């Protein structure tokens, strides 16, 4: 099993198709080692760069100082630690706030399992509303329905474990889906606001479970507590977190962005990001994790590739040029991070 997990790593990190062991390498720098570094800066200290991953065609930039490397590392560790705080709660609270204030009397449609609000109207008590929003709640009880409703088609984990589980076990699950934009304010400010696509799916079978949380845009809810991601001012943009776990371990796949982070770096973007438990290299994330320095809107991309060296370190890139190395400590993954929708 461990070998399978190891092979499955490539799929986790690089997004291969279900049922295939082939590694689809989206990083064009792979498989060539270190013979011909393109150095555009004569002062570059190549020792500062993650030496096990130097490729041809790499452009060396002006190295960042050690303090910057450390601060990037700290920022990323904060990002990793905060991933499990993202859930559907603020979305539901925003929805509930608007529903409870009876603004639904303006334009409400209820086709099937969907509730749809439409229009730009004023509630009877004078509160202002604007927008259009759909909320759909779907129960999943059959395998075929799972594959569609989960919106997980095209994914797999751990060398086919997910699809194998679905194919052989009874699967149940639920999906809660919002789409649109609705905004309600009163004299004290925003009551609730939902803007974008929001999707939360949970499925489980006896031997495994999988979840998908998609937060397409900003959410505000007055009733959201200060510890929720919304209450902390975090702003997701097309943030997708997909988790899979079974008895052997688990994977958290991350893509998309979150703004509103405190500290030196105010935004992160994950591209094919992943953190694992019970796999070949749990001490290093996979994928590219980018952070934006607040002071000057400067982006640094940190490229991790545990396939090459499981050392917890990634290459720091600045506008395509290598400028340093960052090493991080990855928290132990808790894939029980979300409740049922």
């Amino acid at each position: 099993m461990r070998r399978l997990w190891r092979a499955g790593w490539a799929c986790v990190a690089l997004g291969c198709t279900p049922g295939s062991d082939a590694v689809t390498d989206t990083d064009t720098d792979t498989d060539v080692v270190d013979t011909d570094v393109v150095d555009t800066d004569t002062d570059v200290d190549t020792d500062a760069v993650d030496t096990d991953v130097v490729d041809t065609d790499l452009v060396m930039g002006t190295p960042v100082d050690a303090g910057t490397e450390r601060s990037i590392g700290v920022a990323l560790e904060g990002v990793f630690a905060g991933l499990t705080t993202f859930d559907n709660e603020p979305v539901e609270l925003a929805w509930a706030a608007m529903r409870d204030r009876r603004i639904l009397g303006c334009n409400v449609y209820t086709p099937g399992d969907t509730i749809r609000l439409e229009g730009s109207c004023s509630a009877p008590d004078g509160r202002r509303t604007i927008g259009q929003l759909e909320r759909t709640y779907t129960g999943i009880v059959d395998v075929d329905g799972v594959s569609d409703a989960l919106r997980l088609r095209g994914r797999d984990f751990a060398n086919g474990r997910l699809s194998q589980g679905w194919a052989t076990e009874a699967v149940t699950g639920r999906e809660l889906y919002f789409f649109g934009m609705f905004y309600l304010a009163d004299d004290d400010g925003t009551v609730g606001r939902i803007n974008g696509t929001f999707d939360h799916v949970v499925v489980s079978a006896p031997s495994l479970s999988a979840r998908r949380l998609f937060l397409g845009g900003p959410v505000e809810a007055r009733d959201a507590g200060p510890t929720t991601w919304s209450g902390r001012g975090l702003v997701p943009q097309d943030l997708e977190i997909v988790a899979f776990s079974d008895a052997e371990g688990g994977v958290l796949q991350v893509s998309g962005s979150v703004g509103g982070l405190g500290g030196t770096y105010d935004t992160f973007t994950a591209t094919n990001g992943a953190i694992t438990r019970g796999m070949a290299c749990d001490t290093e994330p996979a994928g590219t994790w980018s952070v934006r320095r607040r002071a000057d809107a400067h982006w640094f991309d940190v490229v991790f590739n545990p396939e090459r060296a499981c050392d917890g370190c990634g290459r720091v890139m600045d506008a395509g040029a290598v400028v340093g190395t960052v090493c991080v400590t990855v928290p132990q993954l808790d894939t029980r991070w979300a409740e049922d929708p």
Partner: protein
Amino acid sequence: MRRGGIARSVGVVLAWGCLLGCTRATDTDADDTDTDTDTPVETDSDTTVDTDDTTGPVLPDYQPLDAIDLLVRASLDLRGIRPSIDDLGRVEADPAVVETLIAAYLEDDRVGRRVREMWDEVFLVRDEETFVTLDYFRQRHSLAELARSIGEEPTRMLERIVVEDRPYTEFVTADWTVVNDVLADMWPVDYPAGAQGWQTAHYTDGRPAAGVLSTNGLWWQAGSMLNNLNRGRANEVSRTLLCFDYLNTEIDFTGVGALDSEAALGNAIRTDPACTACHNTLDPLASHFFGFFYYDAQKRDPLDVRVYHPERERLWQTLGGLPPAFHRVPTQGLADLGRTIAADPDYSHCFAKRAWEGLLHRDVLPAERTLIDGHDAAFRAGSLRVRAVLRDIVASDAYRNGGPEYGRKLASPTILSSEVEDLTGFSWTTDDWDLVRAPVTGFGPLVGGVDGIYRSVRLDEPSTTMVLVQKRLAEAAASWVTTHDIVERVETPKLLRIADGSEDPDTATGEQRIRNQIAALHARIVSERVDPAGATVDEELSLFRDVLDQTGRPHEAWAAIVTLLLRDPRLVVF
């Protein structure tokens, strides 16, 4: 109305064509493609091919304008108003004084407003249809307030740069903006509490400092659909600031596969030379603007569109864009782009070209392109202060041309509006819209107004609709000013400073005062001296008597005279 009056009115209209030069050559050789600057389009080689033949095109036969006409032209172009009677008298006494007056006009703060108005026609954003949805904000402000305020933010920044003699580089690097109380009510800016009107302020949402490139005003107007991925915005930046319009680039689709699906289109954009020629530079430029990117629902969310979105800056990655770059050199985001553009030679050259076109109210002819190089050099020598390049252009033979070709030009709607307001105090508005300028509620496109929707090319020949709008404007302004000056008998009349309505034209004293007033109106409104005892005044006195006989109301008789003069073609051709 006697025949003389009718004949005069008809003559006003018939005089139109020849004022612009009956012998003007056709404009078919005019360059309206903005392709004279170095092209960012990728070709097999990096050289720019000069297709001009060996002899090259010939400059028009510039002939000097006389001093009075030059005075009028400079006053309207630089201040938006006609010269005072005093200025007129000084130049009549000594034509050389016109240079002193032009130098003074260049230092006038109204130059800032004029540059703003000229760049309204460059940015094409001062229209009534914004990209973002304003429904929510209309609960607090009228559509006219919103559209005008939003559209003016970019050019108000430019106005400040002119008035305060700041370097033009700040237009794309500044950490400040200029907003009014309407915008401050919507946007995250440190607008002074309790203030009114346009003030310098800063965005407080941490957006990158990139001058106009960081303004809501620009991007609320110039939007991008989801699949467009900011390419339209990138072209706006290229077109307005660098004078390269990708949409004017010829594309040879020969050999391009069928573009019958989204995927096929996306593939062609990245692989087919016919497409990559533009997209390899356009798309990296577009990738800078995702902090202002809105999905369809988001552009209807008032809280979403008001702030900058750092969390969207990297959407180009997932939506199929290319990494941010300018002319193939990678950049580090919007602020870096602003600095890079500011250092690009095309940036100042383009401004010089735009200023030339704005002042001469026409496109640069192929033969005149070298003139722009000279004005750009003057601009740079003047540390990119806008007045430096304006001064250089206004001193040029091309600007001072009074010859048969390109010796006259049409006033823009903004000049027509401001000169009439200055003469009469009358502003033609409804629901806060300036009717001379507004493209939908008003008559802007009918008068040659350029807004990018109803007109994209400036009018350079008189049109029937222009004459009609001028007529209605003249009638309304004349009625307003004569009521103001005579009926209300204000302390400081705007126009009628000799006659006060009590004059009896059948007495020698009364007739003389009326004659003197008519002559003074000629000087003030059309900047010409007429003999109070001459034929022109005879004719207009006759009209005055007719109207007075029929109505018995002196202010209506004066309104007829003022209308006649405000309809003079010289108010819009100069």
